[in-house]
Each structure stands twice: as structure tokens, then as C-alpha cells.
């Protein structure tokens, strides 16, 4: 996987962030175009390619979610775009509450605040679930674990979007 290669790392889902940063800075010092301003155009171009790859790799790998998404894609798994079925009922009720608050019905606020808390908790659960699954897959490359990571990422993304919508609505109306 080229992003791992760029940083001289084995493709693992769990990463030591301090080590990642150190590798990024060391390689930046070595390859940044600033170091090649008086070099030949081939060397300049190579420096630019190396550095842009390094920057893209660091940006992707430093966040667990983007790292896992990259890992899945490279492993040939596409992320799902469907709503997680277990959340359907919840989302239905949430949308009603959002509509009510938009329409000026303040009684919906309590329900949304509760939803906000619940979603924040779900995100934290997803994150700790991910780190458990990362360790598990790194220990033994089991395709079932990879599927579980995919499902967790999908659920996490969906919850994160819901949370964003709820917070946006709560903020808009508290500002008025």
C-alpha cells in the first residue's frame, strides 16, 4: 500500500502516532522541494512527487477513520452508502423532531438534546470498537474482521452525519 510505503511502514491498521509524525517530519526534511531549488528539473519533479505523496499519506494515515477507509479500499472493499438498518426507526423519529424544531415547536428540543447525547456516545463506542478491531486484524488477517470494520465505519459515518444535522439545528435555533 503506497501510503504506508511512503512512510516506510508495514501496512497495519493500528499505528503509533508519535512514530508516524517523526517519520513524516524526517522524510519532509529530506524530500521537500525547498531542498531542491537548485537541482535539475528531474530531481525537482521527483522531490515534488515524493513530497506530495508523503503529505497525502500522512494526512490519510494519521486519522483512524481515513486510515481504515484507505486500508479497506486498498483491500478491495468499497464503503457502503446505505443507512444502517438498525438505525432506521431512530432516524425516522429524529427527522420528525428536526422538522418540528424547524417549524418553531420548541418541545422537540429536549428530544434532540437527548439524541445529541446518544449519537455522541455511539461515536465514542464506534471509535473504541475500531481500535479493538484494528488490533484483532493486525494480529490475524481475518476477512470477517475486515467486514466488521467496514460495518463499523459505515455506521460511524452515518451517526456522525446525523450528529452534525442535529447540532446544526440546535445551534441555529438557540442563536435566534
Amino acid at each position, binding site marked *: 500500500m503506497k501510503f504506508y510505503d511512503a512512510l516506510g511502514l508495514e501496512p497495519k491498521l493500528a499505528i503509533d502516532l508519535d512514530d508516524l509524525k517523526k517519520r513524516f517530519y524526517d522524510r519532509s*526534511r529530506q524530500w521537500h522541494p*525547498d531542498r531542491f531549488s537548485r537541482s535539475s528539473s528531474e530531481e525537482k519533479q521527483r522531490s515534488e512527487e515524493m513530497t506530495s505523496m508523503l*503529505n497525502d499519506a500522512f494526512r490519510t494515515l494519521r486519522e483512524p477513520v481515513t486510515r481504515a477507509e484507505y486500508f479497506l479500499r486498498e483491500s478491495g472493499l468499497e464503503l457502503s452508502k446505505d443507512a444502517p438498518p438498525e438505525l432506521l426507526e431512530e432516524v425516522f423519529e429524529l427527522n420528525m423532531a428536526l422538522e418540528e424544531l424547524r417549524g418553531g415547536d420548541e418541545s422537540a428540543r429536549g428530544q434532540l438534546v437527548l439524541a445529541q447525547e446518544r449519537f455522541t456516545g455511539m461515536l465514542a463506542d464506534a471509535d473504541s470498537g475500531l481500535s479493538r478491531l484494528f488490533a484483532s486484524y493486525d494480529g490475524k488477517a481475518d476477512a470477517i474482521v475486515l467486514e466488521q470494520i467496514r460495518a463499523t465505519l459505515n455506521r460511524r459515518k452515518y451517526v456522525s452525519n446525523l450528529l452534525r444535522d442535529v447540532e446544526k439545528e440546535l445551534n441555529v435555533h438557540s442563536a435566534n
Partner: protein
Amino acid sequence: MSTLQIDFGHAKPRIVGIDLGTTNSLVAVMDLTGPRILSGIVPSVVSVTESGEVIAGAEAREMLITHPERTVYSVKRLMGRGVGDVQDELRLFPFHIVEGSESVLKLQLGDKVMTPPEVSAYILRKLKEDAEDVLGASVTQAVITVPAYFNDAQRQATKDAGRIAGLEVLRLVNEPTAAALAYGLDKRKEGLVAVYDLGGGTFDISILRLHDGIFEVLATNGDTHLGGDDIDNLLLNIALEDLQSEWGEDFSGNASLVQLLRRAVIQAKEALSFAPSATIELEYGPRKYQREIDVQLFNRLIEPIVERTLGPCRNCIKDAGITVEQINETVMVGGSTRIPLVRSAVERLFRKRPHTELNPDEVVALGAAVQAGILGGEVEDKLLLDVTPLSLGIETMGGLMSKLIHRNSTIPASETELFTTAVDGQTNVLIHVLQGERELVKDCRSLARFDLKDIDPMIAGMARIQVRFLIDANGILNVTAKDLRTGKEHSMDVKPSYGLTDDQVEAMILESYDKAEEDFKERQIREARVEADAIIGATEKAKEDEAYHALPDAERIAIDRAINELRLAYHSDDHLLIRDQIEKLNQATMALAEAIMNEAVGKALKGTNVND
């Protein structure tokens, strides 16, 4: 110019650092002891004289009053912009835009028509010459600073200006980042630094992490149309309203008076940073105008402008993924940060007293010189990791913008995208590249349209063309395309939405060589010849004097020989030789000059060496 020229011979050519500001510009260089400003502040003003000569700097600033219609200032506000973008500026600035300025503005100055990059090139050329005079060597490479929030077209326009001025622009550096470089240079600073940069025409906020010699920009934000100019315009409007009621006339169309008034307003504004009140004073013919402004009124007036800087600051903190408490230092840059209300607003937001010990007018140029030192290899332990201020994307179905590279990504950054054909036999694919944060294409900045042409006709969806979008270390977009089926580079036509095409820039470079450009060596020869003309002329005149005929033969022969030798050297292309012979003629005529002085007749030879 001194006759003593230090010849650096084959020394490595120096890279200069240039702060190309809205109001003023500066050039600096990296010395062994640190960055150093070369020569003085150059006002960013360009004027065309009645004889068609283009002048830049302090001289041109005087022309603002006498010939406002052929003089341009704050041209940085027009860089990389189209007519539609600058309607607001045109209400406040006396720019004369020529008809037919769709993608590049064209300004009418006297009988000349110039684009903003050409105008900026005259400022750069002045800085280049100033630097050459101080360094005693030719300058051909530069680092130029730009507002961090400049988009691709504005950056490209700045780079074009450098090329037209005969400078190879090795790097564009963001102004707040440059300031951080100057600030953190000799201190062992670690931690998070916020740079608040409120200049003449632009506002930037950047948050950096400093650690182990690396200056890593975490996030940047800003407004490329917010600065001291806006404050001037507020005060100017008040003064113009006053004049209308006091003198019963609307002077807003009187460019010369408006410029006088602008100067008066700026003086009052600057005084208000240090005094509780100041007076806007104008004398115009027999009439006098005075208006006292106290700090309370001034603060009330500018509060909305100061407030407009705070939103970008909050967004920047959020984008950096930090909280305000984590920021260790706040650094102030730009002349407008001298205003007490600005300082107190920044202190309130960042909950820390901002650093103001560096001269806010010089710190950006000094930082540019440090970056020049990094590129030149003189500074080895520092490295800048900057970001792109705006997201880059392409137009997709339904007029939507699909982001490829997100804002605040470390540059160089790249993304590849696979394109194919939608109908059978289609031979070209059009890619519309945009910059901005909004979802709809119409709310983003159009950068360029790339036409992937000459695709072999085949069934829809069969073509495989991989396009690579790269934002380089200057924050400028580079696009390449590869046909995955053949593995060969795929050709494309590029139509920039704003700005000059490569051919146009090339034409301007050629033109500038024809008309104004002469390199440093030519200039030195020309100057030596002017001096030689002066001393030969004066000597010939002195030869008509009685004192000459009273000289001993040997002295007269020595003078004639020195004149002849100077005439021989005159046509060489070695300015040092010319100057040597000037010096010899000076020596040879010493006795003659003395005799004439003693006689106290005719003109003193002593005054003939024009540059002594």
C-alpha cells in the same frame, strides 16, 4: 553611486526576499548574521509620465496628487481578478478599466494600457534595482510573499509579475508564514503560534506548530479584501460628506483632491494609534478644511472592520483542530495592527497579549529572506510546511462542485481522478476546475477549463484518462493527464478563467526587455558612461580657461592622455575600466581644478563629478 564597486565575481547569486504589499513593498536578503532589509520602503505605486516613461515607488506616489489619472496604487487588489470581481473597488478607487477586460483587467494609465501583473512588475523591477545597487551584483531570483488566502489566479498573477520583471520566482510564500519564520528564527521556539496579519488590503490568520526547526502550518483563513484601505475609505467618505456640506460641492469625482484628502486621512488614522484625537486637514486653493476625530468615534467607525477579522480567526482555530487555550503566542503583522482597537480585539479573542516587538512593516520581507536562505542552502535547519487555503475541485453533474483536495492540506498535495467518455465516439472531455468551499459551482472560483482532446473514438466508457491535480509548494495548480490504455501523456488545452496565458506573459517579458528592462551590468555601464560624459565635458570646458594654458606642458599632456584613455574605455563593456579611467582623469585634473578654484573664475571643476 560610489566609484568603489565591490565585485563579487563568481560568488553564488543571491536570492532576495520580496514583500510585494498593497501599500508598500520591501526587499530583503539573508546574511550570515540573519535577514537584512535592503534599501528603503518602496510605495506600491506606479505612474506613467507625460513623456511615456513608467516610474514606480516614492516618485510615483507624488504623481498621485499631480496626475491621479495616470497613476495606480493598491494594484494588488486587482491581481488575478476579472471585471466582475472588482465592481466594489471601482467605486472607491480611481482605476480606469479598459473595455474588453474579460479575463484580465486592463488599466488605462496615460496613453499606456497595462494589466495588474505588468504594473506589479514595475514595482518589482524597482525593488530589484534597489537590491542590486546595495548588493553590487545582479539579482535574478526571488522569493515573493502573497496573502495566505490568495487563490490560484492571484498567485499565478504574482508569479507572472515576477517573470515580467526579469525575476525567476523560486517560491511564493504566504505572508503570515513568512512572518512566523522571521519571528521564530533565532529563538528556540516550540509550540503553537497564531499569526494575525492585517495589511493595507488583505487579512490573513494562520496557526502554526513550531517544533525542531519545522514551521508547520495547521490551518489558514482570511479575506483578500479587507485591510487598512477600507479604514481609509470610511474616513474619506466622512471627509467628502463634510466638504459637500461645508463647501457646497461634491468632490468625489475630483481625483486630485480625493488623493490629497486620502493622504490627510491616512495621517490622521496613523496619529490615532498614539493620540486620543487627530485632525484631518486639507488646504485646497484658498479653502481650508479641518475635522477632528477622536478615538471613540474612530473606534466606533472601524469596529465592523475589526469584527470581520474575528470570524476567520475562529474558523481557523477550529480547522487547526485545537482550542484557543492551546495557542502559546500571537504574532501581529501588517501596519493596521498598530491600531489599539485591533490589538485589544486580538488579545480578547486569543486571551493573550500579542507580540508587537517586531516591526510589523518589515517582518514579512525578513521572513521572505529567510525562505530565500532556505532555498539557497544557507539556512539548513529550518523547513516550512505550508497548506493550501482553499479546497480544489471539479464540476460534476448538476452544477455541483466535487472536492478533490481539501483546504488546509499540506502542500505539495495531489489527487488523481479517472475520466472517461459518456457517448460512443466522443473525442474530448472537458474538465472544469474550481476553488472554494461552497457546494455549487456558481459559488466557487473558476480556475480553468481543461480540454482532454484527441481521444480515439471508441465505445462510451472505454476511454481511461487519468488526470493528476497537483498543488505545488507555491500553492499553484498543475494538471497532467495520462492515457491509461497507452500509458502515454495525454495532451490537453488549458483555458485559464482569469489571468494571462503563458504566451501573453512571454510577450510581456519580450516587450519589457525591449523597452524598460536592462540587466544590472548594462545599467552599471550606462551609469559609468553618464559619469564619464560629465567629467569629459567639464574638462573640455576647463581647457578654455586661462588656468589651463598656465599649466606646465607635462600636466596638459597628462590631462589629454587621460581624456583619450577614458574615451577608449568608454566603449568597452567593462564599467570598472570606465570608472578606473574616470578616477585617472580626476587625478590628472586635480592641479587644474585647484588653479581654477584659486582664481575663483569659471565653474569649479570639483562640482563636475556628478555623483561625488
